[in-house]
C-alpha cells in the first residue's frame, strides 16, 4: 500500500473510531438513563403552550438564494486551490487566466449586489 493511501487509512480509522465511540456512549446511556416519556413531555416545544400547526413551516426564500450563490463561490474556491498549488509552473498564462476568472466572478457578485439579491429584507 502506498504512502498516499496510508494517510487515508488513518482518516478512515479515525472516522470509524469516532463513530464507534459516539455510538458506544449513546448505547451505554441507553442502559443507565431513565426513560419515562409522558404525554406532555413528548410534545413539541413551543415555550410551554400547546404547539400550533405543523413544525415544518415555509421559510424565507432568501435562504435559498444564498444557497445558490454559495454553490457558485464555493466551487470557485475549489477551482482556485489547484491553481494556487501549481501557480509557479503555470506561469504568466495561468496567472492571466485566473485574473480573468476572478474578474468574471467579481462581476457576477457586483451584478448580484446591483440587482438587490443580497439585500436581506
Amino acid at each position, binding site marked *: 500500500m502506498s504512502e498516499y493511501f496510508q494517510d487515508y487509512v488513518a482518516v478512515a480509522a479515525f472516522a470509524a473510531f469516532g463513530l464507534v465511540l459516539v455510538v458506544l456512549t449513546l448505547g451505554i446511556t441507553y442502559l443507565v438513563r431513565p426513560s419515562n*416519556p409522558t404525554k406532555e413531555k413528548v410534545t413539541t416545544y413551543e415555550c410551554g403552550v400547546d404547539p400550533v400547526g405543523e413544525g415544518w413551516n415555509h421559510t*424565507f426564500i432568501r*435562504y435559498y438564494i444564498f444557497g445558490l450563490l454559495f454553490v457558485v463561490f464555493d466551487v470557485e474556491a475549489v477551482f482556485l486551490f489547484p491553481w494556487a498549488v501549481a501557480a509557479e509552473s503555470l506561469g504568466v498564462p495561468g496567472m492571466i487566466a485566473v485574473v480573468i476568472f476572478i474578474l468574471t466572478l467579481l462581476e457576477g457578485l457586483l451584478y448580484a449586489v446591483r440587482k438587490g439579491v443580497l439585500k436581506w429584507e
Partner: protein
Amino acid sequence: MDWIDVLLVVARVVAVFALLMGVCTLLVWFERKVVADMQNRVGPDRAGPWGILQTVADGVKLFFKEQVTPRKVELGLYLAAPMLAAVPAFLMFMVVPFGRPFTITLGGEERLVPLQGADLNVGLLYVLAMSSVAVYAVVLAGWSSGSKYPLLGGVRATAQAISYEAAMGLSLVPVVLFTGSMRISEIVAAQSSTLTFLGWNIGFPAWNVVVLAPSFLIFTISAVAETNRAPFDLVEAEQEIVGGFHTEYSGLRFALFFLAEYINMFTMSALAVTLFFGGWSGPAWDGVLPAAVSALLPTVWFFVKVLVFLFIFVWLRATLPRLRYDQLMTLGWKRLIPSSLVWLFFIGGALAVRRFGLPWS
C-alpha cells in the same frame, strides 16, 4: 507497512482523540472562568481545584439524564444528527500538526512519528470539506425536530455557515499560493525560517500573518462565524429562537452538539495558528536542552499560541453584542467575499511580479 506501523497509526488516532477530549473539557471550564472574571463573577469553583472538574461533572450529569424524543420528530435523522456533528468535528482536527515529528526505534527500525493524525496531500481542502459536512448536522437537527424554533435555527445556520465558508475558502487561497502546497506540514515548514527584509535578516519568524494579514483577518472572522460563536451565534440565539437547532435535544444527544462546538472552536484556533502563526515552529534549543525537552518544546509553543486564540474567542463572546441577520449577511457577502477576492488578486499579482518580473522588463 508492518504491524508496528498499524500500531503507530492506532496510537496516533487514540492520542488525538484523548487530546481533543481533554482539551475540550478544559476549554469549557476555561471559557466559563474567563467570562466570569470579565463580568466580575467567581464562576465555577466547587468541583475540584478552581472548579476545574466542573465540565466533567456536567458531562456525568448529562450522561445519566433522560433523552426525551418528541413525538413529531423524523426519528432516523433526528438520531443521526448529533453523531454527524461530533464525528466531523473529530475528523477536522486530524490534519493539524501539534508538535515536531520525532523518530523512535521500534522493531529494529527507525520510524518517524508525526504528531498529527494524518498528513494529507490535500490537507487544506480536507479541512474545508469537513467544515462543510458539519453544516449537515445542524440542518438535519433543525429539520428533523419537527418544531418551529429548530427549523428557524437550522436554516439560519445553513445560510450563515455557507456564506462564511465561501469567504473562508477564498481567504485560504493566498496561503496555498504563498506556500505552493496544500499539505499542512509543508505550510508549517515554510514558516519555520526567519524573515528577510531588504536583504536583512530581521530575526522575526516568517509567519504567514506578516505578509497575509488581510487573509488572516478574513479567516478569523469567518472562523468565528463558522463555529457559530458570539457575535455570530444567531443559530442559537436564546432570546429569539430558544435553543435554535438543538431545542428538542436533551441528555447526551445535546452534549454531543455541545462537544462538537467546542472541538470546532479549538480546531479553528489551531488552524489559525498553523496557517498564519507558524504552527508548532518555535525555538527548541536542540543540543542546549535535553533531547526530550527539545522534542516537547514545539508542542508547548503550539498550545501557547492556541491558548491566545481561544482567549480571543472567549473575549469576543464576553464583549460583543450579537449581529442582526441582515448585518451578518452583508458582512459576509458584501465585505468579506469581495475583499478576499480583491486581496487574492493583489497578492497573486505581487507574487507574479516577484517570480516572473514586471511585464515590460
